[in-house]
Structure formats: C-alpha cells, structure tokens
C-alpha cells in the first residue's frame, strides 16, 4: 500500500477566481449581466463557463429612455422574478456575494 502525501488544501482559500463562486454556493449572490441586467438569487449550481442555476431570483433591467419633449434622459428599471433560472455563462460580467455589497 502506498502512502502519498495529500496536500493540505484550505477549503475556504481563494486560489483561483472560480473559488469565489464556489464559496458562494447556497448563498444569495449578485450577478451583473450584459445588456444592463442584474440578478440577485441563491446560487444552486455553476460550471466553468459560469453557467449558473439560481433560485428565488430577482432580475433588474435598467433602461435609459429619452423624453422626446424635453430630451431628458429618464432611467427606468424593470423588475422580474423567477423561481428558478438557468443563466448562460457568456452573458455574465461579474459575480459577487451580495451580503458584502449591501444588496
């Protein structure tokens, strides 16, 4: 029987960027997506593409409209909710645990 030295890996250490995502499993996270979209939800699963399964999701879409009369920019937000959501990874810009962002 061989006894190999098993490297001691600190489970909470962030050694590669995806560790940040791994440590957010089962936590509510904030996701910034392309097209001025934001998601807040509980991270159930993810993969290396940043495909993600989120639960109890709130989506916020930011739209800048121009009032034709005054030509003023009006920023409008649209909110959607979803019980469960699959997010395709290529739309992801940023992922952050929201508890630490005050969100």
């Amino acid at each position, binding site marked *: 029987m061989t006894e190999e030295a098993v490297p001691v890996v600190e489970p909470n250490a*962030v050694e590669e960027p995806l*560790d940040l995502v791994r440590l957010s499993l089962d936590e509510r996270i904030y996701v910034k997506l392309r097209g001025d979209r934001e998601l807040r939800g509980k991270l159930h699963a993810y993969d290396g593409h940043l495909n993600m399964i989120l639960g109890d999701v709130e989506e916020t879409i930011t739209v800048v409209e121009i009032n034709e009369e005054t030509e003023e920019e009006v920023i409008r937000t649209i909110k959607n909710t979803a019980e469960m959501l699959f997010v395709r990874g*290529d739309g992801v*810009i*940023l992922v952050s645990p929201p508890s630490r962002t*005050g969100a």
Partner: protein
Amino acid sequence: MQQPPIQQQQQQTSSPTEFLNNVIGRPVLVKLNSGVDYRGILSCLDGYMNIALEQTEEYVNGQLKNRYGDAFIRGNNVLYISATKLRE
C-alpha cells in the same frame, strides 16, 4: 512584509505572465471592453483571465457606481489590467 516599489518590479517584468504574477496582491485597475473600470486588490486570476478582486470599486464614466467586498470578473470582458498605486 515590505514589497519593493512597483517601478522596480516593472523593470524585472519580461513576460505578461510575470507581470500578472507580480501584481497579485496589489491594487489594480481592470478595464472591461464596455469601458467600465474596476479598482481593487487583485486576489488571483486564471488562464481565461477570470479575475478575483477584493475591495472592489466600480466606475462608470469615471464615477463610482458600486462597491463589492469580493468580485469575480469573467475573463472575456477584460480589456486590460493596470497596476496602480495604493488609494489614498
């Protein structure tokens, strides 16, 4: 531990990988293709140029828009990573 000033390190930089290894743990400015800037401490990065930042500040059109304790940035969005001086 006292690290040498960044100028000295830059003189030693002879490859992109070496530069990135030198700036881990240092304050950086990450610009995305969209023009949005992120300032923070570079925790680590990987071969896709996915980035983990600490104490992250998000700047849109030069204005501070958001703060994140930790932030993961997907590598495909990254335009450049710049070593910066410590924030006052």
